[in-house]
């Protein structure tokens, strides 16, 4: 979930008033926001945003806009958006995308802003908004990278192309010497973080102005001159690059609206593409690209269980900042410039729900009669647990992930049937347990202080390879039990098994368990049920006990309950 930290006065300024924390707590849910904390000394409000499909809410301006609109019912309007038929003047400002970038990082678009001198707080806040968009929405700059530049140093047109990474050089932000693009990937901290996004291509994206001065090496780093925005600047050029045009348009729209809310004048910039797009070869940015979306009143009624009128729906949507109209039982919305999360009519329904006020819906129990039922495995497990508890065993519960050392090496088994993780976080959690027995032995190894005998068991899942299954694996409901004491032996294990099987009404036979290194040879048996091996038990081999650092003799057993139930 995105989290932002907003200077109090910026937030209150955007809201148009001061609000207490209690008031914020009350109203925040309409933006799916949570008050994560309020540092009253540093004057910073911390906000967590829960909607990962609403990047417009991941900034102070976005949250403030949602709250203000909800309270006032007035939908904000932004006059600087161009459409296909209504192009705003760009006064010679233009970004030209070169075809060399196609297939690498297809598009670069941008806009300019002026009219407010940024101070420390505003600059930090602006950079935070930019970072949230690039990191969370832009998947760590993979699909969206954004640069903010000093507009007065730029000579339009700005050019976007893919260039030779070795011969193209400039001084990157944060450094004083000129480096090639490839060197930046190796030496600059941002290069090491983000260089991998483009480093496999023969040519790297590059943004420069008509004088040949570098703006940036997207998605990695700005130049140290045009790309070095500082406190006191008031004229900016904002550029966004990436492979998915709609994502870029949305990111631009969000930032443009945010900056307009902060008091900037937004200056459109023309984008000339190197390939055909759904919006043509040339558009003026910010550009309104969203299409209207509809939901039938029936859908609204069906989902919400409340027969809201057309007007109630339209009013509710207005509180969510959404223009809507109704005709012939259809609610049609004009998607706000800074949003693109209406995929289906149900997305309109949710906005109506929030706008109408969740508190205005009465909880009602579902009326359908249904029969409650445990799974057959759970019922059978409970029966088995009852018998084992009666036999004096303590039920245990374990994690399912562990290390190769515990699950395999300490058991002296091959591990061929164990299912390993391809991307383990640490070697402590690298394999799903192929048996309950190592878990029981771990208990023994850490419980020397506990009064003997140790009689423990678990019923839980294990996973083993099984080529016949679609997944090549099989998850088994498995019973393992373990008993350690100075005098315990094979006969005890056999007696436990016999008692368990008697009360489960399962007829079984035994076969000698050969070549199972976990048990003492000649003192282990396989349990055969309906002609198939369903389990094994016997005296724990001292080599296994030694590996676990245990010194008490023990017996152990494991049974496949799924097979035994069958």
């Amino acid at each position, binding site marked *: 979930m995105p989290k932002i930290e907003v200077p109090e006065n910026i937030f209150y300024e955007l809201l148009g008033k001061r609000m207490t924390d209690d008031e914020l707590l009350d109203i925040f*849910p309409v933006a*799916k926001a949570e008050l994560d904390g309020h540092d009253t000394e540093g004057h910073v409000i911390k906000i967590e945003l*829960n909607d990962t*499909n609403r990047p417009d809410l991941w900034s102070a301006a976005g949250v403030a806009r949602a709250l203000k609109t909800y309270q006032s019912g007035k939908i904000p309007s932004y006059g600087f958006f161009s459409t296909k038929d209504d192009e705003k003047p760009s006064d010679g400002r233009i970004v030209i995308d070169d075809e060399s970038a196609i297939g690498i990082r297809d598009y670069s678009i941008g806009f300019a802003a002026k009219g407010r001198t940024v101070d420390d707080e505003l600059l930090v806040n602006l950079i935070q908004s930019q970072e949230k968009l690039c990191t969370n929405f832009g*998947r760590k700059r993979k*699909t969206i990278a954004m640069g903010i530049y000093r507009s007065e140093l730029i000579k339009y047109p700005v050019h976007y192309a893919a260039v030779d990474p070795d011969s193209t050089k400039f001084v990157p932000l944060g450094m004083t010497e000129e480096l090639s693009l490839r060197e930046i990937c190796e030496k600059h901290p941002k290069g090491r973080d983000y260089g991998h996004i483009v480093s496999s291509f023969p040519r790297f994206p590059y943004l420069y102005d008509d004088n040949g001065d570098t703006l940036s090496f997207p998605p990695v780093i700005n130049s140290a001159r045009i790309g070095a925005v500082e406190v006191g600047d008031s004229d900016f050029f904002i550029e966004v690059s990436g492979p998915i045009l*709609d994502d870029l348009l949305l990111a631009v729209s969000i930032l443009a609206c945010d900056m307009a809310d902060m008091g900037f004048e937004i200056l459109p910039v023309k984008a000339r593409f190197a390939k055909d797009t759904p919006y043509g070869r040339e558009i003026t940015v910010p550009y309104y690209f969203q299409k209207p979306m509809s939901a039938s009143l029936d859908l609204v009624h069906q*989902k*919400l*269980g409340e027969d809201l009128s057309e007007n109630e729906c339209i009013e509710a949507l207005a509180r969510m900042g959404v223009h809507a109209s109704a005709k012939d039982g259809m609610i049609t919305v004009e998607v706000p410039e800074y949003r693109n999360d209406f*995929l*289906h*009519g*149900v*997305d309109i*329904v*949710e906005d109506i*729900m*929030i706008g109408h006020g969740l*508190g205005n819906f*009465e*909880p*009602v*129990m*579902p*009326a*359908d*009669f*249904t029969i*409650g*039922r*445990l*799974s057959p495995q*759970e019922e059978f497990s409970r029966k088995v647990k009852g018998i084992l*508890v009666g036999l004096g065993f*303590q*039920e245990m*519960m374990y*994690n*399912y*992930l562990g290390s190769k050392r515990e699950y395999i090496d300490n058991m002296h088994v091959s591990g061929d049937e164990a*299912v*390993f*993780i*391809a*991307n383990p*976080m640490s070697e402590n959690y690298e394999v*799903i347990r192929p048996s309950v027995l190592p878990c029981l032995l771990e*208990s*023994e190894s850490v*419980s020397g202080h*506990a*009064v003997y005998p*140790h009689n423990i068991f678990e019923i839980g*899942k294990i*996973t083993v390879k099984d080529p016949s299954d*679609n*997944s*090549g*694996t099989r998850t088994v409901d498995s019973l393992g039990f373990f008993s350690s004491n100075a005098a315990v032996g094979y006969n005890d294990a056999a007696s436990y098994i016999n008692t368990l099987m008697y009360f489960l009404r399962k007829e079984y036979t035994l076969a000698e368990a050969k070549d199972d290194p976990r048990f003492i040879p000649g003192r282990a048996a396989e349990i055969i049920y309906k002609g198939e091996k369903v389990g094994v038990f016997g005296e724990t081999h001292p080599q296994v006990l030694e590996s676990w650092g245990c010194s008490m003799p023990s017996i152990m057993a494991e049974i496949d309950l799924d097979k035994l139930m069958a």
Partner: protein
Amino acid sequence: MDIDVKNLHPLEVKLLRFVKPGEDITEESIISGLGYKVGQCNQAFSWLSAKGCLEEVSRTKKTIYEMTDTGRSMKEEGLPAERIYSFLGENGPHTMPEIAEALSLEKSDVGSAFGLLSSKGALKLNEERKAEKAGDLPEEIKVQRAVLDRAAASGSLEEGELSAEERKAIAPLAKKRGASSSPFRIQEREVVVYRLTSAGEETRSAVIEANITGEEFGVLTPQMIQTGSWKNGSFRPYGINAPTSRLIPGRRNAYSEYLQWVKDKLIALGFEEFDGPLVENEFWNGDALFMPQFHSARDIHDVYYVKDPVHAKEIEEPWLSQVAATHENGWNTGSRGWGYAFDHEFTRRQVLRSQGTVLSAHQLTKAHIPGKYFGVVRCFRYDQVDATHGADFYQTEGIVIGKDVNLKNLLGLLKMFAEEIAGAEEVKYVPGYFPFTEPSIEVHIKHPVLGWFELGGSGIFRPEVTEPLGIKEPVLAWGLGIDRMALMHLGLNDLRELFTPDIESVRTRRGN
């Protein structure tokens, strides 16, 4: 009086009944009067003193000559000197070895006795080097004899009772410790004199009044029942607050019992349980839930991938085609879809189940309508393990399918969970976000102990989730975060403790 006379031990009872107020009470008086063994006597003194019934009046050191077994047989058979003297008197002169042989005495004992007797002129060696009688038995031996005889009556003699002559005579017969070959063992003993305190007098009266004799039956034996002897007396009441011994029972795991309780609650509310394998594929783990394949939660750093086999063999149709089309263009769900090219290889990639909702998706393909389903299932999250994050953990999830289920039913359902499972005092709903539900609701509850917290997330499955899996009806989906309540229930504050391998800790753990 704060002493419950029923809790007195028979040794205490009998002592109290035996002694009189104001009289001196000593070990000797109790042993001779009640036939206690020394140990029993000491126990009775110590218990009654601790209860404030007895007080110590004086304490004096005494030296006691305690007769040993050797001493007792010497008393019967005679001192070696006596025996030699009378043997020679009756049988005439004999050599030392002959004497030792005839009287079964050690040669050294015969030697030292002869030395004593000859020095006092009672015996002498003749020309044949045989011992023979020469005078009367010395006075010292007679005194020793008298001391032996006196000691035999009580088993011991106190030094203060002996004359100077007797003390001199007994000295060679006594040793300080061990030496059972000596007739006497010297014991330094403190003689303690007790007297009843006023509390002791009250207790004594109470014992008499309650008619407790100390002769009541202790353990009831099979013989007592068979012979009916129990009818001839009464049973000693036991101290009901005596310390108990530790038992280690066979027992359920407290966390597992809590999960069972949750399951039983859900069964009672009409839900049917589902379950599934731990290894899933990207199709069910994410695609079927309409999470776009580029969704940040599906990153390599958020899901555990299976090393081998990397891919499932196939994804079931028609689900695969329908879900793929929904992602790409909405299929015929009325959605515009995510607008990207669905990756048919990625979708077969195998992962460890990362969310319980996966099983809800599976259930959609086999659900009855109307239907209510739930699962308490293990999930895996790519997280650093700490007090609030486990590598694997349980999620409690479910769905409700019905022709007419809607938001208001969802709220009703959440209210029911809040009250029935969490014991909530107040319930608050706020809009939430999940990729697979729209609208989405979070339910926050005011718990009597934990205060306000988020109990769960829920929503109505998006048509992009249900329709490609063959369900036209609305489906309510919900998940409950029960681990916090489980921790509270078990008095824990670290999630890792739920799966502890420590046997002692599990044995002693209990729910609230």
